[in-house]
């Protein structure tokens, strides 16, 4: 084969190979690590998502936060102003976690319908509402 042709062929093969691997990784990564976002209302009406890693968001319901005095167990309700979801978490809450503020929790839905959170996210802004929550609230309006 002409050296220039051969050079080209090899180049294209390499690119093809690298892209295939990248696509493989991207697809694998996306299929196993996507965190779908749900609102309390959506979670109430679905049973098939128990046990999968998901995110849920809403506003922390006033007076719903119950903290243990002897352990890091904490539970609270999040709401989209239609339905509430009980969230259980064990750990230190972020600095900006507070009642009547937006919060996103990551974890999975337990058999009893409560949400077992592995991570609690709050944002550094007092006027902040998680965009997912804002959207969800808007959808409920319409």
């Amino acid at each position: 084969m002409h050296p220039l042709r051969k050079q080209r062929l090899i180049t294209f093969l390499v690119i093809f190979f690298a892209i295939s691997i990248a696509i493989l990784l991207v697809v694998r990564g996306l299929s196993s690590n996507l965190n779908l976002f749900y609102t309390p209302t959506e979670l109430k009406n679905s049973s098939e998502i128990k046990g999968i890693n998901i995110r849920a968001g809403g506003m922390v319901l006033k007076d719903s936060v119950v903290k243990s005095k002897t352990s890091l167990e904490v539970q609270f309700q999040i709401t989209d102003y239609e339905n509430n979801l009980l969230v259980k978490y064990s750990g230190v809450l972020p600095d900006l976690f507070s009642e009547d503020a937006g919060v996103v929790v990551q974890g999975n839905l337990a058999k009893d319908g409560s949400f077992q959170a592995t991570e609690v996210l709050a944002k550094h802004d007092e006027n902040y509402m998680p965009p997912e929550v804002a959207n969800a609230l808007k959808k409920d309006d319409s």
Partner: protein
Amino acid sequence: MNNIVTKLPLVVFVILVASLFIFLKNDNQELNSVLIDKQFPDFNLSSLDKSKVLSKNDLEDLPFIINVWATWCITCRVEHPFLMQLKNNPDITVYGINYKDDRREALNLLDRTGNPFKFSIFDPEGRLAIDLGVYGAPETFLIGKDGLIKVRHTGALTPEVWEEKFTKYID
């Protein structure tokens, strides 16, 4: 062949830019269309000066604008002079929602700079604000003669914005 390859990045980026424009456009629409042509939500909150408990029925002078403000909100001071002007406009009533604020400081500020509002609803926890889908302060809503929400404006209310977005619903 070389030619096709060198035009590939162009094609890819044209698609990327086009989709970004679409995302951006969708984003804008969502922000504005939420409550448009809906009833003003019900509420039950005290007035800023504590004189009485207010509900939706107290917003009786149609059409009106209702302005979400707070002492911690700097932009609110920018639009304040214009709100004072609107107060003297006989075609429209101006109400306020004092949002996530301290009652004393808020009254203090109104004393110092003038009160453009017929009254202000005191909403320290942002309950009414949430029903209205408020992102922050300042925001201004226009409720038309039919009692439905016509305009939502985020950011400072200026004479230009007023001309452009609000006047067509008032006459």
